């Protein structure tokens, strides 16, 4: 029974982590067909922003919000300077954002030094059966759900969400109807970046931050998003659930290496069978 509880907890935790780190990338890929390989570095910047905010005295929740805003703004700048020139050129955006990620890592190492840092979590733990669970980990699950809900709400119930969805389906027609696709892309990229920044901020109490933090996340997020297909919420949610479950079970039973390799193998098989990802064939939905 305890084993079941522990496995369930780990599965939920793995899914939570995947959702948190992938959602920003999914929004950008799903709506703009842009592969942002600098996503890991956006997460890292959000983590640094959170650490600075906490050092300056803000409470954790405020620091996370500040980090999201800061990285969102940075994302808008990146979009204007770099991404805007590369729409429609999928491979080129991949390469350019890869260069951007290397650049950001180098810049942060130079400006902030290569040493890592962190902030404490004083949330304590809660006992479930014979298992001690970190309260913070459980709160992360709530954060993941909130991120999904917020994105869905924005897309479904706001005017901007409507415009964004329309532009996603057919930018030409949307443009012909008076929507400014360029503006939509800019705001969407900013929103996706803000999600990435938020991810970094909420993960700081768990992993700390250092200039190379992004590397640990980008591969997982990338594989999850691509396997999920072009629908950001449905695709990423589905892919995160599948991979999180596999990772959680395998890493509990054996080790985290087996978990990661297992996830990658499943991703390869899924992509071979469904070349456009899990939701690739779906025309509507989010």
């Amino acid at each position: 029974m305890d084993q079941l509880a522990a496995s369930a907890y780990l599965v939920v935790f793995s899914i939570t982590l995947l959702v948190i780190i992938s959602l920003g990338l999914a929004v950008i890929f799903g709506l703009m067909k842009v592969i942002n390989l600098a996503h890991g570095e956006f997460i890292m910047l959000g983590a640094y922003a959170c650490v600075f905010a906490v050092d300056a005295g803000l409470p954790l929740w405020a620091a996370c919000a500040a980090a999201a805003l800061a990285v969102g703004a940075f994302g808008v700048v990146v979009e204007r300077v770099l991404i805007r020139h590369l729409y429609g050129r999928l491979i080129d955006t991949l390469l350019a954002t890869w260069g951007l990620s290397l650049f950001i890592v180098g810049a942060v190492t130079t400006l902030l030094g290569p040493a890592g840092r962190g902030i404490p979590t004083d949330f304590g733990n809660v006992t479930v059966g014979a298992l001690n669970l970190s309260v913070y980990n459980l709160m992360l699950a709530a954060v993941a759900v909130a991120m999904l809900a917020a994105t869905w709400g924005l897309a479904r119930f706001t005017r901007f969400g409507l415009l964004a969805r329309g532009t996603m389906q057919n930018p030409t027609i949307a443009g012909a109807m008076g929507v400014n696709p360029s503006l939509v892309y800019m705001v969407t990229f900013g929103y996706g970046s803000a999600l990435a920044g938020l991810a970094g901020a909420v993960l700081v109490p768990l992993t700390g931050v250092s200039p190379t933090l992004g590397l640990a996340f980008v591969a997982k997020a990338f594989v999850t998003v691509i396997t999920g297909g072009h629908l950001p919420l449905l695709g990423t949610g589905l892919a995160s659930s599948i991979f999180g479950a596999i990772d959680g079970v395998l890493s509990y039973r054996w080790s985290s290496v087996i978990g990661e390799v297992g996830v990658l193998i499943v991703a390869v098989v899924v992509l071979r069978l469904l070349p456009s990802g899990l939701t690739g064939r779906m025309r509507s939905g989010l």
Partner: protein
Amino acid sequence: MTALDFASNAAVRPTWRWWVFVALSVVVLAGLPLVTDVSLQLQLSLIFLLSLLALSMSFMWGYGGMLSFGQTVFYGLGGYCYAIASMNFGTTGWAMLIAVLLPAVVAALLGYFMIYGRLSDIYLSVITLAVTLIFEKAIRATSGPEFVVGSVRLNGQNGIPGVPGLQVPWQDAPLSMEGVFWLTAAAMVTVYVALRLLLTTSYGRVLVGIRENEARMQLMGFDSRRYKLAAFVVSGAIAGLSGALYAVWGNFVAPEMFNLNQAAQVVIWVIVGGRSTLIGPIVGTGVVQWLTTWLGQVGVGQVTLVLGFVLMVFVLAFREGLLPTLGALGRVLVRRQPGDTAPPVLPARQSAPGAPRE
């Protein structure tokens, strides 16, 4: 002259000028060890064997139209095969052969899996990325003493040190530093010439045709999957050779050969040099490698910053790479005559034909 011209020129028989260029290069390379010291030969040999890796990638990408992050898989496999085979069997000649054949076989399997599954473009790249990660994580986790192949411990994170140098039939001791230099130079020149000639054959022309418009080639009756798979296997074999030469060069193999950083570097070399040419990647490798090594020593330490900046600039501004851009620049400068206009620059193929432009 544009990228298309380069590509289509590839299908043309090389002129006598090109043969002179090759002959001159061979003479210069053969004579270099006599006038340089050991450490320069060391650096140059590394550049030569890494340029093989770049060549394999540009052959597949620039001419075959497939962007694969998996070249490092074959590179690492080649290195590890050579290390394990030579340390188990004691002979290095056969080890070299295995180091080229095994990656080719793996490339055939992986290529069959992907290409016959009609995977396009970005999804092919993602799968090769995932495969690279799988190999890296798997090899890194083999540190324990239970992971042995024959009598050689895989050693995981630590890599396998003490890999023997290449034994040659005309001397007792393994190849010296000079010998390694000549070997890598010879390999680079041979592969370059071979690829160049391969592209002039009907196979080469069909391959370029597939890159230009796969649907059209299929309608003309060519099975594009077979041609792409062959290109994938050839690239894999060349990358394997590169890995084996690395093991001979450094007497050491490690999981870093499989990792994402290494894959990124290959892409950067090819982009900087020019992916639609064969000589471009060689130059790109030389420039970027020299830059990285120099930066790591000057104490700036921010190699990643510079590399990232270089990659962004080249993708945005010099999409064709260094050589074609310099070539075009040269031609523009030379043709400064009234009434002369620069030829129109056509955009090179981006995505697979038929893929919707978003």
